[in-house]
């Protein structure tokens, strides 16, 4: 079980010491920015994955570009969660932490990222630092950690590394990888290989010293550390690929057959377009960085209108700016895919941190009635496929499809089955054949929701698209009946599409005391928490929604089988613990609102805006507390 250790007699691969057998372990490596903790984390994550573990890694990114050294907010690094069962989220508190200085380390402690009492390996050079303030700061932290019963090991990294390289500061990270190889009992050859691939091409003279550092770390651990862990591999049967959610989005765009991506940089969405900018030209695609989000969205709409289906990628503040154009895309029935990689809000908020706070804005943000489809990937794999699906829906129903990803998916990395490429994914080519007489540009089959789009270049299809109220020919018309009909027709597309949706699956029993409903990136954490409490016999299940508007049928029936229903979300809700809050003024989490309004079931919510992925352990505690 997660985080639980079982004593075993097995010997680890590398040493004569007793290794504790684990189902999973969470490691964090933090350093000042530029000291290479991220590289170390990525490399060790790769090695764990290649040697058969399921791995989830997340970057720890400082708030500044080049933050000052030795500051809690300036820490840079990596979290690695590795296990012998499918890992779907970043997990709870770290169980082994490596700090390059005590300040970077304390940042994580203040954010409660570490499990109390966990193992800490801390660079010891600061103890004797010439600056007495630094030395004092270090020993202060050491005292605290000891007082709070952390298993602290002071490691003379600088000293050890300087035996091999001149600038020990730049070599510590490989020393750290070496230590980890020893602690987790992995074949050192794997790490040597990684170092070789990393440096061979560009900086071949760095291979040797880095391998020396690696081996030194390994040896140091062998000599000085009294613990070893073994995390058995889990059986992967199919080929896997590893990516973060933004890379998956970019690959999904390529796979969906889209040709144009128009964007304006915004964190945490931009990296999707970075990667796309690299690969898109190879398939004739183009990433347009517009002067602002409004222009980006208009550009995408223009391109889509001309038959080159387009995507626009943004985050909350950018979506806010696109609001008016979103309504145009719905009103004028132009297919458009919009990816919103959600971050902390409101306003500029927490640019690098996760939140699921844009759901209601995505659905209701546009003045007037602009029915659009809103969906949310729950995993990194979903990020890939949801784009393909979104493009298809957008073109089929000639409407706007919003894909709500978030910073958690964007920056997390995970392995998933290598997609089996299918030609079906792609977009049909631009139809340039003449339009048959008698067809109207905005006709629409009320049962299937299908319609033929007229695209510039098609003889006989000429019409003027407009955001004004219009009839089926696209002609401006202000008559009451026509506007009613137009709104109705656009709304019924959602109904027609809704009929095609499958009810969500229930994870756990079909009935019980508590149902947790989630959406988006929280899926892994929710399901893990539910699995944990179910082992203790609690009658809890969960279900996860991919389509938020429209919602599949059958959800009400699922909910009705539980005594209590609640959502778990990363967004703001009032709590009854606040004195001022009562049932007349409580503001609910996004999904809870939607479920309450549609199903009239008293759906509660548990949510926060801490700007971090919700941990399975926190959900678990909440459930236990609730069902006590």
């Amino acid at each position, binding site marked *: 079980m997660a985080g639980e250790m079982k004593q075993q007699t097995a010997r680890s691969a590398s040493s004569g010491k007793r290794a504790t057998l684990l189902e999973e372990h969470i490691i964090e490596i933090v350093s000042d920015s530029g000291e290479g903790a991220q590289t170390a984390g990525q490399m060790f994550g790769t090695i764990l*994955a290649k040697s058969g573990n399921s791995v989830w890694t997340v970057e720890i990114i400082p708030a500044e570009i080049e933050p000052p050294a030795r500051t809690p907010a300036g820490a840079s690094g990596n979290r690695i969660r590795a296990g012998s069962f499918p890992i779907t989220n970043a997990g709870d508190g770290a169980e082994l932490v490596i700090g390059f200085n005590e300040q970077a380390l304390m940042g994580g402690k203040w954010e409660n990222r570490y499990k109390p009492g966990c193992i800490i390996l801390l660079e010891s050079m600061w103890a004797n630092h010439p600056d007495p303030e630094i030395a004092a700061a270090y020993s202060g932290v050491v005292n605290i950690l000891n007082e709070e019963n952390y298993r602290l090991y002071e490691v003379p990294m600088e000293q050890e590394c300087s035996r091999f390289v001149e600038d020990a500061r730049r070599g510590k990270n490989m020393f750290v990888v070496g230590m980890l190889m020893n602690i987790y009992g992995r074949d050192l050859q794997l790490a040597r290989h990684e170092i070789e691939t990393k440096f061979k091409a560009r900086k071949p003279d760095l291979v040797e010293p880095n391998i020396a550092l690696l081996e030194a770390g390994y040896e140091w651990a062998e000599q000085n550390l009294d613990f070893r862990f073994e995390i058995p591999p889990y059986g992967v049967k199919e080929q896997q690929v590893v990516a973060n959610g933004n890379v998956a989005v970019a690959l999904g765009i390529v796979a969906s057959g889209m040709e144009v991506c128009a964007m304006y940089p915004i964190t945490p969405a931009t990296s999707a377009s*970075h*990667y796309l900018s690299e690969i898109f*030209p190879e398939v004739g695609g183009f990433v347009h960085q517009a002067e602002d989000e409004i222009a980006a969205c208009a550009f995408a709409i223009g391109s889509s209108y001309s038959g080159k289906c387009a995507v626009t990628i943004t985050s909350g503040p950018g979506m806010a700016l696109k609001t008016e154009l979103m309504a145009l895309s719905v009103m004028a029935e132009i297919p458009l895919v919009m990816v919103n990689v959600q971050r902390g809000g409101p306003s500029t908020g927490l640019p690098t941190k996760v939140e699921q706070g844009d759901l209601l804005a995505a659905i209701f943000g546009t003045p007037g009635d602009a029915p659009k489809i809103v969906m949310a990937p729950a995993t990194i794999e979903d990020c890939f496929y949801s784009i393909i699906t979104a493009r298809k829906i957008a073109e089929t129903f000639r409407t706007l499809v919003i894909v709500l990803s978030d910073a958690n998916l964007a920056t997390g990395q995970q392995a998933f089955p*290598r997609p089996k490429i299918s030609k079906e994914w792609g977009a049909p080519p631009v139809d340039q054949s003449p339009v048959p007489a008698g067809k109207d540009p905005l006709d629409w089959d009320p049962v299937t929701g299908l319609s033929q789009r007229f695209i510039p270049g098609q003889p006989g299809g000429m019409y003027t698209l407009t955001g004004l109220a219009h009839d089926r020919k696209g002609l401006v018309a202000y008559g009451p009946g026509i506007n009613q009909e137009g709104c109705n027709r656009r709304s019924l597309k959602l109904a027609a599409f809704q009929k095609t949706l499958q009810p969500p699956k229930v994870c756990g029993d079909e009935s019980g005391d508590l149902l947790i409903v989630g959406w988006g990136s929280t899926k892994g954490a929710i399901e893990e928490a539910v699995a944990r409490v179910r082992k203790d016999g609690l009658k809890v299940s969960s279900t996860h929604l991919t389509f938020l508007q429209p919602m599949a049928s059958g959800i009400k029936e699922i909910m009705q089988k539980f005594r209590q229903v609640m959502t778990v979300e990363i967004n703001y809700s009032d709590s009854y613990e606040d004195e001022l809050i009562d049932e007349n003024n409580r503001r609910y989490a996004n999904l809870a609102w939607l479920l309450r309004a549609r199903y009239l079931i008293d759906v509660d919510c548990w949510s926060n805006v801490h700007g971090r992925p919700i941990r399975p352990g926190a959900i678990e505690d909440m459930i236990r507390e609730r069902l006590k």
Partner: protein
Amino acid sequence: MFGLSKQCVLELNEEYKTLEDYQGRISRWCPGCGDNGILTATQRLCRDEQLPPEKCVFVSGIGCAARFPHYMSTYGFHGLHGRALPTAQGVKIRRPDLHVFVNMGDGDCCSIGTAHWIHTVRTNMKLVAMMHDNNIYGLTKNQASPTSPLGMKTNTTPQGAYLKAMNPLTVTLGITNVSFVAQVVEWLPEVLYEAIRQAFHHNGFAFIRILQRCPHFTPDAFSGLLSDPKKLLMLQHEDGIQLSETMSRLYKTTEQHDPADINRARELADRDDIVPIGILYRNENIPRYEQVTKSTHKSTWEQRENVLNGAFDKFGIDADFASANKGTRAGDGE
């Protein structure tokens, strides 16, 4: 006619497009509205160039001027106030076969659309942009526009407009990559037509400011120009517009201006005492965005499969796990 088979003649005749072939719904601008003249000149261009109606797209924003596409029988995109230019860019970016025209009001272009106007000039895509400048917000009924003259009474400036009119020409001529700037008045059809024609043949983004009468709200805005031909400075050049004899007789204030001379163009544009008419600036050698951004790869499905497989190989678990991070780090920042 010898040797020409009857069939060919017939076919030719059948395909020949007349003005009516470009006429959409009946225009509903006010009687005497200058937009009508701009419409006629544009339809004439389409006819003279025999543009296939299905290959033309007229993109507009919102305003009186922006009703333009409805009165053409081509494809039309009557979009959002201020957003005509980025929409038109999107239409054109991967459809070089389409002739894309943009019609905007002065508010549409120079107020809410300012950022797009500046940046579209900069990207220099092959588009013809006509700015119908009536010095007023027409459709919303008489509010000041950036080009409203100082002191003009409008509904939002009942005591008179506070600022001197903005000069769209000097701004446009200050933008890097500017490649075609013309100024004409809609009441001189010959010059109007010629400017649109040269814009159409220009290799890049052609910006035409058209002074346009709005008899409903600003009947006197251009009366000075109408009554006194000397107030118009006709720019003449073999590379620019050359006036007909009749016009030359009426409009005698002329200047030989080489459209290649940007410094002189800026000086002319800046003049407060007289209104320069003609091609102020043209440069056929500025790279076009749709061309410089064009990929050498085809958008075939096979190519997509290749690229996907390449990526999957690279990110494959048996291959290089760490490379999944290359260039993909979710940025910091706000």
